[in-house]
């Protein structure tokens, strides 16, 4: 008897110790692996099917993939991969924060365009001392993106238009309004191209690598990654945001003001999109060029990067980089083999399909 009770208390203290002990490092790593598992498997699955497709066209998949890798990560190409990754990661952050709060913001493209347009407009026309030109132009772009997103939120909360629809449709007015401005009233005269005048040197973000368009804006995006990771996971506001997205009724029941929070999150999401647009204008093109922000599909690839990472800001850094590498690598593959770079897009699509099976496509699932 005495022995049994002894054993029981031992078991009890053991289990309570297990509960009480803070997570140790291997648990954390294991957790990451488990979370990343489906995304990693999706990528491997996509690459395998891609290899099959390359083989079917009569090309060598190993050669194709090695050129793809070279095209993305060789010393010469890596700045271009990073430069493309920056806006994708930024857009993915904008998407992640909104999705985490249960707000399906599909208007990142419009918010990005609006931010870029405003930044270029302010940078060119602002009557300000040179040292203020860059920060003010950046800030104006951020605000423009945020306010534009706020409009979509207002449509949902005031008129009951689902944010998915309102934000998606708001892309078009932004894109075509910008198009009109730079081909007319705010266009560069004489050039004959739909673009704004060049922004003055004082308003430009510094270039990081000579001969490349990689610029200081990448650091802004990198900083945003860590700030958002911290805010979402560690702050009271982030907690409220997560609960809103996990179960909005639970949040409301617990006294979280879900509507004001919804406005704030959309404002933040739009501001992030705005800064991405502003960085593209002030750091890459030095002007707003019609379709330059929309043709590369930053916002849409950003959605993919966000979903692929499970809406995790740190994960977005990796998935954004991966999707960017797939695209720049695609050019390399096309240059050196007969495999068209569109295959990279096919790969991307297949990987997203695999991700969509999340939950069923997982190691160790029995049913």
């Amino acid at each position, binding site marked *: 008897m005495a022995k049994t009770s002894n054993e029981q208390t031992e078991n009890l203290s053991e*289990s*309570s110790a*297990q*509960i*009480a002990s*803070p*997570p140790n490092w291997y648990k954390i790593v294991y957790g990451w692996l488990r979370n990343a598992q489906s995304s990693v498997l999706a990528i491997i699955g996509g690459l395998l099917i891609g290899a099959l497709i390359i083989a079917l066209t009569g090309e060598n998949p190993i050669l194709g993939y090695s050129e793809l890798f070279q095209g993305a990560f060789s010393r010469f190409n890596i700045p271009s991969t990073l430069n493309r990754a920056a806006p994708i990661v930024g857009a993915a952050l904008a998407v992640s924060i909104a999705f985490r709060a249960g707000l399906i913001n599909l208007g990142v493209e419009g918010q990005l365009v609006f931010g870029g347009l405003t930044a270029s407009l302010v940078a060119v026309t602002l009557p300000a001392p040179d040292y203020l030109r860059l920060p003010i132009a950046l800030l104006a772009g951020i605000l423009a993106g945020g306010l534009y997103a706020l409009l979509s939120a207002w449509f949902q909360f005031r008129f009951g238009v689902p944010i998915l629809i309102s934000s998606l449709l708001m892309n078009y007015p932004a894109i075509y309004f910008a198009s009109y401005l730079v081909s007319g009233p705010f266009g560069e005269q004489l050039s004959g191209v739909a673009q704004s005048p060049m922004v003055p040197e004082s308003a430009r973000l510094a270039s990081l690598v000579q001969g490349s368009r990689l610029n200081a804006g990448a650091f802004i995006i990198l900083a945003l990654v860590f700030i958002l990771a*911290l805010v979402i996971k*560690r*702050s*009271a*506001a982030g*907690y*409220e945001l*997560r*609960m809103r997205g*996990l*179960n909005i*009724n*639970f*949040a*409301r*029941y*617990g*006294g*979280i*003001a879900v509507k004001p929070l919804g406005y704030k999150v959309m404002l933040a999401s739009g501001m992030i999109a705005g800064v991405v647009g502003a960085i593209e204008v002030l750091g890459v093109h030095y002007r707003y060029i019609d379709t330059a922000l929309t043709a590369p599909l930053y916002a849409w690839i950003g959605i993919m990067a966000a979903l692929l990472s499970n809406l995790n800001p740190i994960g977005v850094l990796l998935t954004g980089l991966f999707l960017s590498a797939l695209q720049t690598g695609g050019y390399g593959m096309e240059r050196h083999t007969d495999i068209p770079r569109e295959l990279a897009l096919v790969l991307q699509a297949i990987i997203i399909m695999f991700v969509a099976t999340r939950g069923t496509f997982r190691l160790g699932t029995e049913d």
Partner: protein
Amino acid sequence: MNYHVELRGIVKRFPGVLANDHVDLAVKCGEIRALVGENGAGKSTLMNIIYGLYQPDEGTIYLNGQPLSFSSPLDSIAAGIGMVHQHFMLFPSLTVTENVIYGSEPTHRTLIDRKMGKQRVLELSEAYNLQVDPDRKVSELPVGVQQRVEILKALYRKADLLILDEPTAVLTPQEKDGLFDILRRLVSEGKTIIFITHKLQEVMEISDIATVLRGGKVTANLRTADTSPEEICSHMVGREVLLRVEKKPSQPTETVLTVEDLSVNDQRGVPVLQNASLSVRAGEIVGIAGVAGNGQEGLIQALSGLIKPKTGRIRLSGKDITNTSVAERRAKGMSYIPEDRTGLGLALDTSIIDNLSLGFQREHSSSFGFLRLGLLRERTVNAVQDFGIKTANVEDAVNTLSGGNMQKVVLAREFLHNSPLIIAEQPTRGVDVAAIENIHRNLIAQRDDGHAILLVSADLNEILGLADRIYVIFDGHIVGEMLASEATEYGLGLLMTGVTNEGAKITNIMQGRTNG
């Protein structure tokens, strides 16, 4: 004997629950049979077995003397059985005709023959005096008419046995009279009807025989002409008390919650609560007894701030909170254990820590707005131990817990707020016996700590075991108030089922208050 439908020895088990325990039921052609019993007595399970939604673990069903087994409702529909569910299965954006013919559309050269469909709907509607316009959209119709569309659907599929699950729960008294006229008409045309209800007046009014279920067993088959509501009620509630909760007499002090003339409409604008007045004092558990769906939901939603009341006032510790937000109510001292724990009380996909931290996220943050994760974790670990929540790790998602342990998470969080008022809505529903005891003991401990507790429960045992004072709610009205020591199950049962307003001794509580 020529029974339309006969069940012999039906047994149905769910994990941890014996829902039907050797149930025999025999219904003749042209009969109206009422199936009565408390929540969880096994009525709906039994009807779902006849309808083919569930397969019985034991026993046989005979239809017109032939044994049969249904693997899905498609079989039972083909065999002439129709069911009108409590929540209608209709497409709101389609017309009456489209809804009725859906799934077995009349065709003309492979295309749907709408004219023919409309014709059939009109014929049926006239034959049974249903008065339904076949071209109206379902969303434009009042609830009573939507119910008739459901009946039309069954008739269109040539049902001659109709099962109605609490058909009057959603109807106004006038709509109810209309429904009963239709039921009588159907029976006179040779249809057989089984309907589930809690309301004994309706049983007396419409049925030929009442079958009473209690704890999954049939306790009585009573010929309506020879029985009384009192007798039916005694068979419904007359059972041994399963759980005895030990508690000292209450020592109530100052009034914490006062509700005056509160009226609430639901989203459709239908009154669900009318002129309810009640009060709860510190150090007492006040029970709201009543069959589910008699206005408890409206009362609780208005109290917790999830909907705005139409009229009336709510005061918490003397302050008017009638129009304040949920956050303000919680700040002023209100905790709420909701009945819908998975939809409202928890975020299932996240950790126990997150779930226990709701409402504490600001309080337990640094001045920069960052959560004190260590503190939140420690609180959670303590709560897990104090409340006996069975889990290996507080990082685990709540959806890995059993129902009872989920409820303990809700309970622990709401108790940790240390609010003067705790609203507990069906706190032990769907929870296993061991957890029930744990939850009851905790509620009493909170009472003894000086909290005011408002307990809403459809389980009379729970009300009688826990409450110190009881209000009875029926049909949106508070119809009785008594001290628990003076209440009997029988008397409460009569009030709860609307049989009488005087069946139980109504104590003048104001007098009791001045004494206490």
